[in-house]
């Protein structure tokens, strides 16, 4: 006999009382009970007193280095996404998800070459959030723009709207995932500034961490609203700018020397 045909060994009386309790608790809105659940947990909810952001020193970003990209892929399980069998490499290259990418630029006038990592810019006025029909694309209180993939219907309107091409659609089944970064066919996703790490109180993203480990220190991450954070201090001193400033999106990711 398989498991499902077996019976709970609860005694009749216990059963009745518990079911009455269960029914009443279930009716009195599960929320009341749940929020008091685990008081000693280390984590807090995202707050609007914080705005996560980063400054990228384009001149420090090394040519040929891609440790931020591989760190991101490892952290968020993107390296677990495999090409479907028999699919062409060229096509898959255009279809596989990428949260962060290295871009190498050359000034058409002066010929100056620069490198920079490009990812979701976490706009204050995010076009992807505006256009999403279901509200799956949203901005957290702490400024992180992300996708609630439980209610994403896969319409890709946000990808049409994003000025930075920062979003990826999952084009095929994903066999394996990491716990902190669930992922499945048919939804859109993008960089979430390692929200899981921030919620756990880590305070840094995988890409920034990898960059400093490499010794480049091109990415400074932190709370833009905290005047004493490292990122706020360097932003106050260096001349930085937003990509596509003309759109007035007030991005949380800033660059120097672009």
């Amino acid at each position, binding site marked *: 006999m398989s498991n499902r045909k077996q019976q709970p060994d609860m005694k009749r009386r216990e059963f009745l009382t518990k079911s009455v309790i269960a029914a009443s608790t279930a009716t009195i809105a599960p929320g009341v009970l749940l929020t008091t659940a685990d008081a000693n947990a280390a984590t807090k909810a995202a707050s609007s007193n914080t705005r996560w952001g980063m400054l990228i020193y384009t001149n420090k970003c090394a040519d040929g280095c891609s440790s931020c990209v591989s760190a991101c892929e490892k952290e968020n399980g993107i390296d677990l996404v495999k090409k479907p069998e028999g699919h062409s490499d060229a096509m898959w290259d*255009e279809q596989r998800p990428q949260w962060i990418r290295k871009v190498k630029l050359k000034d058409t006038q002066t010929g100056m070459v620069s490198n920079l990592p490009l990812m979701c810019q976490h706009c204050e006025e995010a076009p992807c959030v505006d256009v*999403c029909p279901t509200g799956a694309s949203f901005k957290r209180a702490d400024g992180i723009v992300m996708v609630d993939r439980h209610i994403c219907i896969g319409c890709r309107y946000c990808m049409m709207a994003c000025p930075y091409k920062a979003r990826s659609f999952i084009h095929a089944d994903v066999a394996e995932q990491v716990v902190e970064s669930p992922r499945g066919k048919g939804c859109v996703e993008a960089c979430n500034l390692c929200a899981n790490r921030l919620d756990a109180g880590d305070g840094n993203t995988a890409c920034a961490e990898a960059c400093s480990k490499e010794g480049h220190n091109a990415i400074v991450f932190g709370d833009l609203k905290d005047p004493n954070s490292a990122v706020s201090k360097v932003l106050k001193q260096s001349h930085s700018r937003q990509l596509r400033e003309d759109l007035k999106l007030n991005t949380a990711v800033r660059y120097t020397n672009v």
Partner: protein
Amino acid sequence: MEKINYRELGCESPRFWTGMGVMAFLILLALVSVYHMEHNGHYVTGMTNQIVWGLPHVFAIFLIVAASGALNVASIGSVFGGPMYKPLGRFSSILAIALLAGGLMVLVLDLGRPDRLIIAMTKYNFKSIFAWNIYLYTGFFVIVGFYLWAMIDRKGKALYRPLGITAFLWRLALTTGTGSIFGFLVAREAYDAAIMAPMFIIMSFSYGLAFFIITLMAAYWWDDRKIGDVRIAKLRNLLGVFVAAVLYFATVYHLSNLYITQHHGIENFILLEGGVYTKMFWIGQVLIGGVIPLFLIYSPAFSASRFAVMAASVLVLVGGFFQIYVIVIGGQAFPMTLFPGKEVVESSFFDGMVNSYVPTLPEAMLGFGGVVVAMTIVAVAARMFPMLPDSLEDPDSI
């Protein structure tokens, strides 16, 4: 004016059932494609992270735009008091409903998670023009449904005009909404233009009327009924005006883009160096969809030819399809300018590159399935309900 008798299309004709069989088969193919796409994921399509909207969207937008335009004939009959158009109102309404249903089917079945459609009905973000469109589309079905009822049922006579006006206004709102889907995409140079919305309205007039002429003539051929020359001439002239207007709007759109230095890149791409998109624009949209139909419509050589009207209508649709293809796909193929004054030397995400898009068979079959669904609805409705007048011979006194 003599009394008009409406009658269902003759149904015993083997032509009808053969036609239905063929259409059912095509719909089946579309459903198989959907299953294929959903089961494997969108990697089996030509759509990528660069070209995120593909052929299904071209078909869907084409049908949705045409849907609101198909209602035009009914509107002329009831809102603007055109007696020659009034008998065509019922057919015009059912065609509008059918085209919208076909287009929405394609749109919905292309979603990454069509199983979550219920979420699209229960969770709304009212800042999104898409969310508004959901209301505009469902509202269109309801209003045109009532409008149709008011035309058929004697009890609805009092409501006929108010409903006609409501439907007309709603129709305008709907096309504006569809056009705005693109108008709001500030990031992409091809779309960021206020003229998008009115251009979509005039496009809808043209495609909708072309669909109307084709289905009307096909239905009357099917059932051996007669259409008078004057009516054909009226529809032909109307189509001519719309086709010319679409050309005019396309010219204004490109001229105004050329005025803005920032947009020179995209204009250069579409008009001169975009390869397949440039060809589609000049040959597909302008020549096939504009110049040739205008010639067929206005040349005295074809003034008595019904075939020329039919051919012009078909060409308008083909050209319109290309036009939407150029807008939707061409607009995405052109790279977004992220770093003005700089050239992208290297990127793993195809920044600064013209993106290629090769549609695959399943997407094409899904898109075409939408057209077939629309035609099937029209055929079934015209057979089951009194949609078309017995005869459309010209009235004695005009």
